[in-house]
């Protein structure tokens, strides 16, 4: 295994990928292979590893001949639930979870669904990571070409059309519908151009069968036909095709049709995604009151372009402010969606508990959340860390944590992590949440933050020299000690400046980051 990892690292280094990303892929490769040679009843005896690099990142495909995992989705769910579960003290079961949280798309195609009769474990990060800085190759030339499946039983037409499109697209010529269907199950094209009239399975049947596959109906489809006869039949129009062309087709016409359809598809996809992000970010954007009695609160946040999902909730109590800071784990739009769903659920829970009782214990709130997560398949489908805190008018703070990084107290030029810890919501077997209490003095401050902020201070030294000592958490503690004497707002902005300076290009869009500084400016009671 070390030899394989070294070979993979060598290859990825040559491709100019960031070292941190290479480390992630090596870990994932190690975890997947360990699983395939240890767990299936019939262990893998042969594996083929294919790596495809592109501007956007890497596609890693591991094909093997072991007994297929019958319930991969369930395995993923369990694995994710254990992933950040050092608190749960599980001594195994982190492997697949490590793979899932590191990558945008992880798929598993069992042998009976794959074209070559082998299982395929595929990681596809293309479009996720930034291109290497040093590479001077023009972006346009290195962009992934859209993939077009060209299906035609006429070998002459197939060759001619292939030649017309080959310079512009990644064209896969296929002699019949059966080949197209088999390949479609393992590789998703951006466009299918198919002859209408073919023996055995014709273009119409091909369109229907592709539409029946997961997400198949979202792939644009163009018919080629020797005559226009029947092309306007209602049955064909209802299939959801994007265009049809009458043979013989000119090079210009074929290329323009492909360009128009692919361009429109990308435009629509981008518009939908941007709107989704905009709407969700507007709803989730963490925000707390700047003043709560004697407390001055500064909340700073950066929403990730992809992934993450931080949000806050707050409620005024008779003697202070009760707040929640939550961080939904994951990457991509799915994480945003779960953050959105979680925020809605927590808001309802928060309101209903506040309605019943003025004095909500922070630990009780987390316990209710944990009970709900443990009993709900939907909420259990992702991971969340959460911190609930109450800022009392007399300077008393009460804090409970569910898998969240500990808050830090800044007092008299010293910064000290507070001993606040607890299991992730939904974990069974833990002994419940404890509420930490402390009374602060005038000028004391407490820092609450999510991993997206704190991780930057865990990163390696800014010069990315992997052999140098890492910037350990004490970097942040030192900053807090050095700048902790000013106002909470000044401190927050200085920390944010350091955060901005430290985070590299890779981290820029990976996760939400939230920082809250609560400064007590009253007199303790």
């Amino acid at each position, binding site marked *: *295994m070390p030899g394989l990892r070294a070979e993979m690292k060598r290859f990825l280094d040559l491709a100019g990928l960031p070292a941190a990303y290479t480390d992630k892929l090596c870990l994932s490769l190690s975890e997947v292979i360990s699983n395939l040679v240890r767990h299936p009843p019939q262990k893998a005896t042969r594996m083929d590893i294919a790596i495809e690099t592109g501007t956007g990142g890497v596609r890693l495909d591991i094909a093997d001949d072991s007994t297929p995992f019958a319930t991969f989705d369930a395995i993923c769910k369990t694995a994710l639930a254990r992933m950040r579960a050092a608190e749960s003290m*599980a001594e195994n079961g982190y*492997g697949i979870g490590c793979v899932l*949280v590191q990558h945008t798309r992880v798929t598993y195609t069992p042998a009976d669904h794959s074209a070559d009769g082998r299982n395929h474990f595929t990681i596809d990060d293309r479009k996720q990571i930034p291109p290497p800085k040093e590479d001077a190759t023009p972006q346009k030339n290195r962009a992934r070409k859209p993939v077009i499946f060209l299906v035609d039983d006429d070998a002459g037409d197939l060759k001619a059309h292939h030649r017309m499109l080959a310079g512009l697209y990644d064209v896969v010529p296929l002699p019949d519908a059966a080949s197209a269907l088999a390949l479609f199950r393992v590789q998703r094209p951006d466009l299918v151009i198919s002859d209408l009239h073919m023996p055995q399975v014709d273009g119409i049947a091909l369109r229907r069968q592709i539409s029946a596959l997961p997400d198949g109906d979202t792939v644009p489809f163009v018919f080629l036909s020797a005559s226009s006869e029947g092309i306007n039949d209602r049955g064909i129009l209802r299939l959801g095709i994007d265009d049809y062309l009458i043979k013989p087709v000119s090079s210009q016409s074929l290329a323009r049709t492909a360009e128009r359809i692919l361009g429109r598809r990308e435009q629509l996809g981008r518009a939908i995604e941007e709107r989704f992000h905009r709407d969700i970010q507007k709803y989730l954007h963490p925000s707390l009151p700047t003043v709560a009695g004697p407390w001055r609160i500064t909340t700073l946040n950066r929403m990730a372009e992809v992934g993450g999902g931080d949000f806050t909730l707050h409620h005024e109590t008779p003697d202070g402010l009760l707040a929640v800071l939550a961080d939904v784990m994951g990457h991509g739009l799915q994480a945003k969606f779960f953050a959105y769903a979680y925020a809605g659920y927590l808001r309802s829970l928060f309101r209903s508990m506040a309605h019943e009782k003025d004095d909500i214990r922070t630990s009780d709130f987390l316990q209710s959340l944990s009970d709900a997560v443990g009993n709900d398949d939907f909420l259990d489908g992702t991971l969340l860390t959460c911190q609930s805190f109450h800022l009392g008018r007399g300077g008393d703070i009460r804090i409970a944590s569910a898998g969240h990084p500990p808050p830090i107290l800044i007092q008299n030029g010293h910064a000290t992590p507070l001993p606040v810890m607890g299991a992730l919501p939904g974990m069974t077997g833990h002994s419940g949440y404890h509420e930490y209490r402390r009374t602060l003095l005038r000028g004391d401050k407490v820092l609450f933050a999510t991993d997206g902020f704190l991780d930057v201070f865990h990163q390696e030294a800014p010069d990315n020299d992997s052999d140098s000592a890492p910037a350990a958490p004490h970097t942040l503690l030192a900053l807090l000690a050095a700048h902790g004497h000013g106002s909470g707002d000044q401190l927050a902005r200085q920390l944010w400046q350091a955060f901005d300076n430290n985070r590299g290009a890779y981290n820029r869009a990976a996760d939400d980051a939230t920082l809250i500084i609560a400064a007590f400016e009253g007199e303790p009671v």
Partner: protein
Amino acid sequence: MNIGNVFEIQPAPDYTLIRFYGFIDASSVLQIRPALQRQLSDDTANLIVDMRDVGFLDSHGVGLFVSLLKQAHEKKGRLVFAAAKGQPASVLRMVGFNGGLVSYCATLNDAYALFARNKAV
């Protein structure tokens, strides 16, 4: 596999130092676990895990560290990671070994100082 090349244990009055070398992965952990259990005293409470020479850590290594964390907590002690960097440090953070569960020290001397300070207090 010569287990002596994978880890070594140095007991001290206030802690036990475990220094790991190379790759802590599926194959090495199979060897490390039983050897560690044999060599680690039952009354060990405080553990310093020296990560200076660890080049790679996978989920099997994480499981091993969870077992060490359990042992430390059962004896009312603590687990300290010293000089973790690069890929192993990233993995530890990813699986939730946060500051509420364990301590991180940038250097081995910082880890020693941690116990010396506690003793002084």
